[in-house]
């Protein structure tokens, strides 16, 4: 087994573990921290896939901003009461998950995926190449994304604003 395989398995194991913690921890803050860990691990996986730019953006946007927002809201609401543990949807959830995982695994294993990657150049995944495709081929989606963010900001302000009498 090569060193890259070992790194991958280590990361994958940790990632699955932290994802499970996101779902099965009862304390919301613990869930959030597990999710931060998962995001960080995914970012490292991105870096190993020669997508350093996206990996860093992942940390910057997800771990640095979105998750802090989550924590902020958790602290603001401070839901002290632990959520009730009801077994109702457990079986259902497991069933769905198993079916889904099975289906995906079946699809993947039938798929003739290329085992050897494309021989990447130095420029692959660099900020320049990402920027080039963003601002040439994908310039319209890019603009739409910015409008989407604007709408989200306005929506969030409207939703969370206190009603003044």
């Amino acid at each position, binding site marked *: 087994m090569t060193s890259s395989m070992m790194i991958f398995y280590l990361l994958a194991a940790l990632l699955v573990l932290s994802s499970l913690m996101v779902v099965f921890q009862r304390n919301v803050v613990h869930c959030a921290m597990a999710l931060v860990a998962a995001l960080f691990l995914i970012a490292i996986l991105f870096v190993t896939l020669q997508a350093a730019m996206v990996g860093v953006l992942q940390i910057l946007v997800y771990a640095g901003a979105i998750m802090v927002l989550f924590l902020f809201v958790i602290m*603001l*609401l*401070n839901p002290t009461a632990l959520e009730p543990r009801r077994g109702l949807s457990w079986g259902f959830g497991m069933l769905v998950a198993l079916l889904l995982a099975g289906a995906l695994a079946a699809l993947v294993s039938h798929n003739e995926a290329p085992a050897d990657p494309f021989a990447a150049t130095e420029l692959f995944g660099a900020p320049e190449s990402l920027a080039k495709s963003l601002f040439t081929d994908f310039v319209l989606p890019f603009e739409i994304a910015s409008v989407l963010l604007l709408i989200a900001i306005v929506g969030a302000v409207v939703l969370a604003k*206190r*009603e003044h009498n």
Partner: protein
Amino acid sequence: MKADAKELPLEIMELQMGPSHPATHGTIKFNLKLEGERVLDCDVEVGFLHRGFDKSCEQATWTQVIPYTDRLNYASSLINNVGYALAVEKLIGVETPPRCQYIRVIVSELARIYDHLTCCGMAASEMGAITAGFYMIEAREMITRLVENLTGARLTVTYVRIGGVKHDLPQDFAERVKQMFKTIRRLLEDCDRLLSRNRIFIDRMSNIGTISQESALNYSLTGPMLRATGVNYDVRKVFPYLVYDQLDFEVPLGTKGDNYDRFVCRIQEIAQSMRIVEQALEKLPVGPVWIDDPRFVLPEKEKVYNSIEGLMHHFKIIMEGIQVPPGETYFAVEGGNGELGFYLVSDGGGRPYRVRVRPPCFIAMGAFHELVKGHMIADIIPTFGMVNMIGGECDR
């Protein structure tokens, strides 16, 4: 969503600030109701430093009360001494000689400078401007040294006596005061540059803790708190005592009644107090510093040690106390924080029947919830700083 679904308030957080909180000077507690950082309500709890001043005074002779008054507003103990002595003298119906009166004015004003420097310096350093705070404390330290040179103690001075002062000014006092004021003026200029014209400081202070003129009067506020709203009430001007009517000074007034006005009032009062001290030192007449009345004045040590009459005289005054005629009186002086009144009741014995102090900062704390309501937690700090609550006086 149902039409009648009223919006519930967000979680209201109750926070107990104090009694051992760095900004509460150790001895006061605010029970806050917060919404986020905003103060919805503030319940002030005082009394953590209550030590039974009134009850203790009833057990002591009239003279023995003086050390207790030191411990009221320990930032301006000389003013307390003077106020108490003047009240007792009013009850007896005597007046001290002019030199004594001038000395009392001088020490009162030194104590006022000390008090205001403490207040402004602490408020500044609590807001993070520690350097400016230290400059003021440096100025304060010089006054402390001078007071130590004069009275023998730095804080609890017990300098004033009923019918006089403990002893005359030391020889080079005027010279030292002149030197000291030079340095204090320089330090205050530095503080002015660091604080009074600092944008952050102004933003933190102005329009915070505002109280209107009517409310301030209604809450019985006095001192810089009241003057910052524009009410011209200074006991030294309205009910002149000692020789204040012979000295030229102004009463700085504010306009808005916010923290910044209070701060500026105090800083300007320091300048006025320095003027008063300079004038008083210039006009200082020669003469005795004690009234010439053996009923109230201890005999000289020479007589005590060498003659039986002197010894008996000394013994009577020390053991039985000064005989104050029965009656009651109220006398107020302008303390560091406002009208410092003494209400004394005598039943004719050597001990006071009742000693009541009108504590200006206790009354100011009664208005505190009004000052901070609607502001942020951080605004409690400068507001409380500018109220200048001194535990010894507030809780007695």
